[in-house]
């Protein structure tokens, strides 16, 4: 196998947000406006507040969407807050979100960005 250099990203965190089906796109748009670069969405089925609300619980969708977003640690609070507001997570039954610290991440980083980072690190030293 040929040797290939990996640009490993550290100082990243994963925001996971579980919302009712149909709401994920709004959440993703809000996250991108706050600086998130990408998002992944998948479907799930969940229970929680719905079962405790009695007849009112019928208004809560059983089908859920889970959104995962990788963000730099310095952006976590801003993106988290925007998602919280966009998903109306202060309302019972709307969903839940949490942040998981990541040890490292890897993806394609355009060469010009790597060059820019290398130059800025060199000038700091």
């Amino acid at each position: 196998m040929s040797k290939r250099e990996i640009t490993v990203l550290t100082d990243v965190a994963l925001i996971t947000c579980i919302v009712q089906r149909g709401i994920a796109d709004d959440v993703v748009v809000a996250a991108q406006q706050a600086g998130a670069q990408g998002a992944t969405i998948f479907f799930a089925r969940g229970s929680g507040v719905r079962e405790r609300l009695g007849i009112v619980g019928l208004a809560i969708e059983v089908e859920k969407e889970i959104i995962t977003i990788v963000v730099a640690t310095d952006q976590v609070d801003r993106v988290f807050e925007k998602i919280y507001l966009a998903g109306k997570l202060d309302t019972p039954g709307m969903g839940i979100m949490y942040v998981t610290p990541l040890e490292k991440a890897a993806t394609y980083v355009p060469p010009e960005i790597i060059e820019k980072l290398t130059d800025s690190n060199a000038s700091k030293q």
Partner: protein
Amino acid sequence: MTENGETKLITCILPKGIAREVSEKLLKEKGIITGNINNARGSGHITAKKHQKAGYQSEKEMFRVVVDADRADEVFEFIYSHAELHQPHGGIMFQNALRKSTEYVLPDIDTEN
């Protein structure tokens, strides 16, 4: 059961159709028998700005594998190169420590009887 960060969870978000191939290579070349794949949709950071809204997302696969901490870097690099993550639109992968996990070991089966 393993505890206290002795295992790591590696998660990959890949374009549709790659995850199964990667999981088979992990089995053959690294002896990792358990990995989970689920379908998803998403957009990435090099998706053009005007296409970053809903409707311009593409199909993805999420691939998750739990590995021993001492093999995590090796497996991470293996997946990175075999999943073509160094290419534009190749996806993203990340790793985090697990507080507790279980492992499934295949039982010895008496094949003679």
